[in-house]
């Protein structure tokens, strides 16, 4: 079977100044709901700009997500955390293994099986949604 061509996206499709949808507005409201319950010194570190556009939302959601990931967890949950850091976006923790005694009903853990060598290339895993700002020649959208 011949490889299928992945559609390209014209440059003008990107619009960070688009007004947020009802979905993102609600997502922001949910973060605000959490933010209101945070200590004042923490809230002071979070962005307080007006959120109208998708870019506005992203610049608010990023820092508060960072905070939620980095803050200490209650003792009962802290055992499950695997190196969560408020570091660089898109390079975060390893998958969490919630290990304990296996249920008798379960089959053998797949995690114990031997892994084969890696064959992936870096290129194959690069997100297609990340587009260089230097790219100039995007095709025009059909009207």
């Amino acid at each position, binding site marked *: 079977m011949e490889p299928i061509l992945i559609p390209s996206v014209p440059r003008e499709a990107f619009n960070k100044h688009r007004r947020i949808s009802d979905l993102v507005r609600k997502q922001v409201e949910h973060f605000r709901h959490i933010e209101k319950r945070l200590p004042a010194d923490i809230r002071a570190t979070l962005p307080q700009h007006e959120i109208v556009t998708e870019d506005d939302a992203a610049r608010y959601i*990023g820092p508060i*997500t960072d905070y939620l990931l980095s803050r200490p967890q209650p003792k009962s949950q802290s055992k499950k955390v695997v190196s969560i850091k408020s570091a660089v976006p898109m390079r975060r923790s390893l998958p969490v293994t919630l290990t304990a005694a296996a249920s008798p009903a379960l089959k053998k853990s797949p995690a114990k099986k031997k892994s084969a060598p890696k064959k992936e290339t870096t290129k194959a895993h690069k997100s*297609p949604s990340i587009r260089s700002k230097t790219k100039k020649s995007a095709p025009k959208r059909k009207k």
Partner: protein
Amino acid sequence: MLDRTLPGIQKLQHVVVLMMENRSFDHMLGALKSENPAIDGLTGNEFNLDTTGEPVKVVPDAEFQSQLDPDPDHHFPAVDMQIFGGVTTAQNPNRQPNMQGFVTSYYNQQHNVGHSHEIMNYFTSDKLPILSTLATQYAVFNRWFSSIPGPTLCNRAFAHYGTSFGQVSMDVFYWNKQYKSVYERFEGTPYTAKLYYYDQQSSSLEVINLLQNQPQLFGTFQDFQDACSRNKLPSYSFIEPNYTDHDAPDGTGELIASDQHPDHDVRAGEQFIATVYTAIRSNPNLWPKTAILIVYDEHGGIYDHVPPPSCTPDGFVAQPAATGTPDPFHFDRLGVRVPAVLISPWIAPGTVINEVFEHASIPGTLTDFFVGEYGARSPREIAANTFLGYINQPTMRADADCPTFKK
């Protein structure tokens, strides 16, 4: 009951669920009926009446962007109109779903008769080469419905918890500890579960309960890709697309929304689906032992011709103040049909699934397969069909028989 002696099931170690945003089955996959009559898509004769009384037929004129602006209403009252054609229970206690209210519902947003017709548009398969190829080369669900005739967050809750705890809206809600999330159910098992959102700036839609209280469950899409390349994929991965156009925080480029929510470009979602698929498909260590489900959370107010069926009530009731209609909702019928595709090299090409599924099928399937007996589940989840039984071929398909994608 899943037949665990099936070769593909014996191999199965990973399940990946990618949940996209706000497109109906007919809008995305309805054109496939002309290629495979078993797919319950469009004949071209389906129609709604517009507000002048003129019939508006479905047409293959869907555009990638700028056509469904404003975002079609998909809150509970609007979806009720879309499904029942504007007939209320007060008018007819025995009303039946007729899918005749989509054009009127869209008209109500702008009072523009011409623009209201856009809600009947659908894509031809050549415009969606990724989703269409996967749907025709693996298994497509003819009857996967959103869990609630309403918006995103309550529908996504069904994918995480098997219930929305009585919610039919986008409002803040807190979980009922009676029903844990599917991810928490993996505690005490040798299996692992993780939610991957795109990046910090897009984050998760599961904010109040899981992200706030259990951040250890989360990773970024880059983490997912790294896990695939390092053969460290969790047993269960739930992937959220990018919900906003925004700059990469490190200044390296623009990150375009890939969720396909109107008015985001549908092609960016095609790219994202291809990336998720390729991360598994191109790794010979993962491909034989991984199943991928691509499913949309709800229809986004866009036309579909199949009336949603009734279902097992989940024990909650949303009162009229919450539904925005004269009636309470007992969670006893499903929402509008959405695209859903199941992918594995152990599935025969051209498979069409006719059983009824909904998002409670996701925790139901994952719990059944990885966790085993688990009593504290919603009645909806307990009643929901599970989908791994379609991974049923006696031999794995040859590599050359499984599609690949290229830029």
